[in-house]
């Protein structure tokens, strides 16, 4: 009737947000909706995201998901951002369906980051 809303994975990621923070001089994407504010920043070298950081005003599920995304994509080519998959993240972390909207904000932030990197590259 009142079960733990947080999976062990969510709890671990939330407790240890190694990728929280900003990258001065990096590229960033930002999105805000559903009471969630998210920012993803990256240092990009040779088309790869050598560092990824997030900032969030959000519930634990979003924070955990953002932390996971950073550690997943850090070191990988920018193009891999396309692989971001809301459903899979929710499944991996055991995020309840009611939170789908908020995880979509993360998806939008990822897109926004991809776009910003693209923009900077084009520029």
């Amino acid at each position, binding site marked *: 009737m*009142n079960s*733990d809303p*947080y999976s062990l994975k969510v*709890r671990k990621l*939330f407790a240890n*947000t190694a990728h*929280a*923070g*900003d990258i001065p001089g990096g590229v960033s994407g*930002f999105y805000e909706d559903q*009471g969630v*504010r*998210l*920012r993803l920043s990256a240092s990009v070298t040779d088309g790869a995201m050598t560092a990824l950081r*997030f*900032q*969030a*005003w*959000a*519930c*634990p599920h979003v*924070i955990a998901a953002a932390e996971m995304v950073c550690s997943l994509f850090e070191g990988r080519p920018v193009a891999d951002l396309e692989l971001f998959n809301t459903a899979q993240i929710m499944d991996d972390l055991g995020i309840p369906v009611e939170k789908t909207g908020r995880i979509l904000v993360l998806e939008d932030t990822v897109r926004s980051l991809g776009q910003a990197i693209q923009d900077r590259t084009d520029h």
Partner: protein
Amino acid sequence: MSAANEWLYLDYAATTPLDPNVAERMREVRQTSFANPASNHAAGRLSATVVDQAGVQLAELLNTDPGRFLWTSGATESNNLAITGVAKQRSHLGRHLVTMRTEHKAVVDVFRALEKQGFDVSWLLPDADGQLSVEQFEAALRDDTQLVSIMHVNNETGCFQDIATLGGICRTRGITFHVDGAQAAGKVPVDLEALPVDLYSMTAHKFYGPKGVGALYIADGTVIEPLMFGGGQQRRLRPGTLAVELIAGLGAAAAESASRLETDLLHLTALKQQLLLGIETIEGVCVNGPKSGAYPGILNVSVADIEGESLLLALEPLCVATGSACNSQSQEPSYVLRALGRSDMEAQSAVRFSLGRPTSKADIARAIDLYRAAVVKLRSIAPGHTT
């Protein structure tokens, strides 16, 4: 999930553990007096004396006559019985009822249900501290007002209402006055002989008694309709086999409270002071409720720019309340704090610390550390607060 002994429980306004003396009394009663107090035999009569004794204990705590209580399953039932019972009983005289927006759900939702049945309810707003002004109260009363229900101590902020004055006004106008005393009975001095109150609700588990039992005080001459039917128990106003052991537990908890009310209050006052001093130095923290004069067992604070759900998780193993105290399952910002003029943003970060008999100075120190650390952590994560 952390193990029970790591937790720091500061949610005593939601519910309290059983006092050891109360537990002992219940064990005794269980062994000697399990019979139905309505049964017409020696065992039944012994159970009846146990119930009577509990009535005496509760009456001593609240300074009234033992015969004026109905035993219920808790304050929710007492509130429902009192409010619906009076509204229906007096509906031929008028259908106007008065209450506040900051009442507990167990009052608010009863009035909402009555509204659907055609009653006309005035919902009064308190000031920013949570206090209802006497002028506003008087202005709301009408010739056809039959019932006023105002809580004694607010469960989210600890704010007191001036029930002596409000009740006095009701009395001169012949309006029935109900008080939800769930957060007051057994916790602060209550003198039902002196107070102009017609109905007073309480629940044992808020003052170290068992869960599942409460009482409704009904002043002489106040007539209500029952909520349930069956059997002649309790003057037909509340049927069902009396839960002897629970009632004895309520009585014992009342006796315990009576003997230590002052001590409890001094203890809580010192702890609240310590907590407040430790917390108010954190930038952006503001207290919800009166700056002074509130019940010392409750401290409700909001903090700027912090997301409430993450705050709660970051606070673990601290067990405190967010949102509406008694039904924290819903994550909506507290309607009580919004009625006090708090923004959604402020209300959603609100944390209610509620302290109890077992709380120590060390607990408070730990709570302060946990709170500060959580705020610092979440701020460090938030966009716009990083350096």
